């Protein structure tokens, strides 16, 4: 019996030691690992390449959780709301800033920036405002601008520069065929190409965003609404939407988007976003495609269409404007490796790293990159990117942004794709929906 007791005691000590060792090893492993969460797309691959340098310097192993775009918000916001520990670092959408800051999901970085000498003045002002601050525009930083992006346009340069097509366009419209400067010109060009036979194939005018479930049609339609003069509020911060959201200019912008959807998109283009647009463009179906600048480096290198693809900034109408994309990189408050995560931010903010980031295909917004004399000529889309980043406008960044976005998705899809009601009715309805949300939030 005593022998059994001794054996049991030894076994117990062994078990406890093994558990302690395993816990210690696990903690050590966590201290040497960082998980970065982002969307699964081309720039994420560039970031993996870039981060190898950080791994070599710091001895920290980087792990990645890249989620396809349609599920990105669902997956990551669920993780944050559940208090999960999946992500140490998160490159999250700009719209998430309000909620993540107010709910304590992100670490406020002001003290860290001060301590490490990281200055927000070193980054493009529009990017800092959109990707780092909450409340918007105030010097409260919850992220470091990581990936500048805006909605832009891709076009078939070979078709636009084909003498026969150019002559035909001139004869038909009296204008020269060139990348459009206004939405009116864009529609005219799209109409010209719609149904045309090129290289024995029927082609279509333009691929635009019409996706219903997540954010697609909102991102697409705002690319028309902003240049026409759509605003969210009459007075910033007052939530007085009447006359701004449904202004005559906003109505005209939405009518234009629907007109392009009706006249000039490929058949079956009723629920399409980035992927569908890229497919349509790469397969030679469309003359122009709306899509994010983030895809331009990949498209420029595409074996099939890279050499015949041109890029242009979102056309103006009453004002120059582009829909903002892009993200900042935040430290998740729940991380077990705060020091490692902050070290990554410090490393990423370094101007040399930012230059490499741009070279690899990431859209750095550090002034050291953007103000470089050779920047505009460094890539065929660099000039357009600079122009776009100076005219970006963003969706609400409120904590209730998801509800606001859902309402806009519904109203826009109902009008543009389903053809219900008028543009004015859609925007009036949107104000009604948003008013309910802001009343619930206690802001109205």
């Amino acid at each position, binding site marked *: 019996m005593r022998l059994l007791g001794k054996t049991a005691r030894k076994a117990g000590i062994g078990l406890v030691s093994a558990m302690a060792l395993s816990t210690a090893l696990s903690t050590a492993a966590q201290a040497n690992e960082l998980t970065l969460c982002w969307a699964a797309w081309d720039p994420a691959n560039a970031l993996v390449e870039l981060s190898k340098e950080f791994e070599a310097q710091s001895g920290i192993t980087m792990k990645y959780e890249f989620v396809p775009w349609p599920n990105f918000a669902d997956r990551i916001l669920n993780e944050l709301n559940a208090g999960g520990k999946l992500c140490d670092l998160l490159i999250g959408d700009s719209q998430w800033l309000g909620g993540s800051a107010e*709910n304590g999901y992100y670490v406020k970085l002001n003290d860290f920036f001060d301590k490490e000498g990281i200055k927000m003045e070193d980054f493009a002002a529009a990017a800092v405002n959109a990707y780092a601050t909450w409340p918007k525009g105030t010097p409260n930083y919850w992220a470091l601008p990581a990936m500048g992006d805006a909605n832009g346009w891709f076009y078939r340069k070979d078709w636009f520069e084909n003498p026969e097509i150019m002559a035909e366009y001139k004869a038909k419209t009296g204008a020269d065929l060139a990348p459009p400067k206004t939405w009116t010109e864009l529609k005219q060009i799209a109409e010209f190409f719609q149904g045309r036979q090129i290289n024995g194939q029927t082609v279509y005018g333009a691929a635009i965003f019409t996706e219903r479930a997540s954010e697609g049609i909102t991102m697409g339609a705002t690319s028309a609404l902003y240049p026409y003069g759509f605003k969210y509020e009459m007075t910033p911060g007052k939530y007085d939407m009447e006359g701004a959201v449904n202004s005559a200019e906003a109505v005209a912008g939405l009518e234009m988007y629907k007109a392009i959807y009706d006249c000039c998109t490929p*058949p*079956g283009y009723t*629920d399409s976003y980035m992927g569908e647009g890229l497919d349509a463009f790469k397969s030679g179906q469309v003359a122009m495609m709306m899509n994010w600048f983030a895809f331009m480096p990949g498209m420029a290198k595409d074996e099939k269409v890279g050499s015949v693809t041109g890029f242009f900034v979102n056309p103006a109408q009453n004002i120059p404007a582009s829909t903002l994309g892009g993200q900042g990189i935040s430290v998740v408050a729940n991380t077990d490796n705060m020091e490692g995560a902050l070290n990554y931010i410090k490393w990423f903010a370094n101007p040399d790293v930012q230059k490499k980031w741009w070279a690899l295909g990431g859209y750095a917004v550090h002034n050291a990159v953007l103000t470089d004399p050779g920047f505009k000529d460094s890539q065929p889309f660099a000039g357009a990117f600079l122009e776009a980043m100076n005219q970006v406008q963003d969706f609400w960044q409120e904590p209730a942004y998801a509800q606001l976005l859902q309402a806009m998705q519904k109203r826009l*899809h109902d009008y543009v794709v*389903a053809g219900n009601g008028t543009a004015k009715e859609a925007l009036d309805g949107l104000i009604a929906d948003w008013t309910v949300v802001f009343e619930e939030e206690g802001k109205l």
Partner: protein
Amino acid sequence: MAQPADLIGRAAAATPKRIAVKVKGMSDTAMAWLFIGPTMLLLLAINIFPLIWTIQLSFTNYRANRPNAEVENVGLRNYERILTDPDVWMTMQTTAQFVLWTIILQTVIGFALAYLIDRKFRGHAFWTTVILIPMMLSPAVVGNFWRFLYQPQIGLFNYIISFFTGVEPNSFEMLGSVNLAPWAIVIVDTWMWTPYVMLICLAGLRSIPDYIYEAAEVDRASPWRQFWSITLPMALPFIMLAVLFRGIENFKMFDMVVLLTGGGPGSVTEVASITLKRAAFEAWRTGYSSAFAIILFVAVFGLANIYVKALNKVKER
């Protein structure tokens, strides 16, 4: 030592002594609770507790994405908002139409197929297997597969319609048209789940004894008369069971609609489960969506109860 004759006695004899000593002296009721206890606990933990918690949340303004916000009791406000929201009623109407049409088509086609298969023609076993294939596929696979079939430029479906009607294949969009999109979903659901209804109906048909038909033949009853007086009434409980299963399943249809249309174009195919998911996990209106879930639960539970009573009456006839 003589073996005890009864089952419990033999089980007790086979039980190790240390355990048997502890169990000895327990009443039958205690033993019964011992056996069903773990299952009851599991049921309470994963079914009853969430249900009670959902009911409690439905009276609050709780949001799962606002852990720091104060949770207020809002009484019946969530229920009032849902029941007076025209968009919610539109969603319920869409769901009801979807359930109605899929059930009608699946029951009619499923019963017809079962009737044919029951004839036991040459190769009927092979054809039964072939017919069952769609039911065995994952809804995610089916959704993506049909999305391609419905593609207006390259989709086979449009070409088949074009072949029979002469209309241009890319002149209509099954998933993008307000008028056609609901039918596109009904077609896919019918394609996938008719075999299930067929299986249940087949079980019903095979349960009818041959001697009843033989007696009818002796009475010179026509095949038509046999069908209406024997086949249909005797298979009816099975048909009703299939309708019940499909009704409950289709009321909560989600995956197929999301994959095919995402609720669009506009909101014409937005069924109740999609609205609920959007409110709960995209807008994070947890209190509101809990109330919505309870309303849906009560509706399905109430309708199913009425239906089961009707089913029992039919069985008693």
